[in-house]
């Protein structure tokens, strides 16, 4: 099974990378761009016969894959 995890910086956290990309997009002909936030996209393959998969995955999202002080995460399970 494939699971995607998207990690994004929290709204209160400054994202200078996002701001630099926003500026570049505006300069390159898209003045409509209001803001860009840059996060991480993790493509994970999991043996889906394992037990308690969802709980354990969320635990690791919180402890390892994201830092809850500065980031939010979302687990996407493709249908």
């Amino acid at each position: 099974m494939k699971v995607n995890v998207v990690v994004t910086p929290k709204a209160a956290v400054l994202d200078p990378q996002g701001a630099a990309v926003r500026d570049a997009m505006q300069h390159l002909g898209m003045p409509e761009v209001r803001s860009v936030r840059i996060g991480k996209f993790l493509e994970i393959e999991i043996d889906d016969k394992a037990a308690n998969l969802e709980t354990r995955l969320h635990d690791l999202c919180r402890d390892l894959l994201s830092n809850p002080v500065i980031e939010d995460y979302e687990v996407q399970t493709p249908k």
Partner: protein
Amino acid sequence: MKFAVIQFPGSNCDQDCLAGLNGILGLRAEYIWHKQTSVDGFDAIVLPGGFSYGDYLRCGAIARFSPIMQSVVNAARDGTLVIGVCNGFQILCEIGLLPGALVRNRSLHFVCDMVTTRVEVADSLFTHGCGQGALLRMPVAHGEGCFFADEATLRELNERRQIILRYATADGGITPDANPNGSIENIAGISNREGNVFGLMPHPDRACEARLGSADGIKIFRSMMETVAAGRMRAA
């Protein structure tokens, strides 16, 4: 007196720490490889700078799961002095021994420079030998040193006097110009609530000899030694 310097794969200031500490009379520093599981017998623990585990995912995110870290957490809870420099600071935040987090420098640049920091807490276990408002010159070298904490945490850090060092101008002013990385409120180093865990982005280990441009880092290590000595006196 014996200090431990923890070595992670990718640590690169472990030798600076060891040399700096061993240059101080009465102090012996030894390496502990991160796969070991005990810090018994050491009076203080140093988490050095570097790029542990390549800084993959986030700085310090993987190092915090190294086998040695459980004993570092236990020692910290028992009151042992723990200092994290640069990458060591990031690891202490990731593992939750210190509040907040260190994110990408506001400028997006890796900064490698000599900075001035102002001692904000003159009676902390790590700076009591410096004096209130003392200015310490130390090098910084980091890409992710911008300290972030939410408003509630920041208020608590101020109220509980956990902000130990702030970036300052040469004459001690706390201004945006003196801030090398965009840290909130010019924060360069903080302690935990109990005061025995200290993390800072500047390198005291690289400021242990006047020939290196500054010997101010020694003041922090000496303060730690005096704290340990005073603790022994109380225990005796």
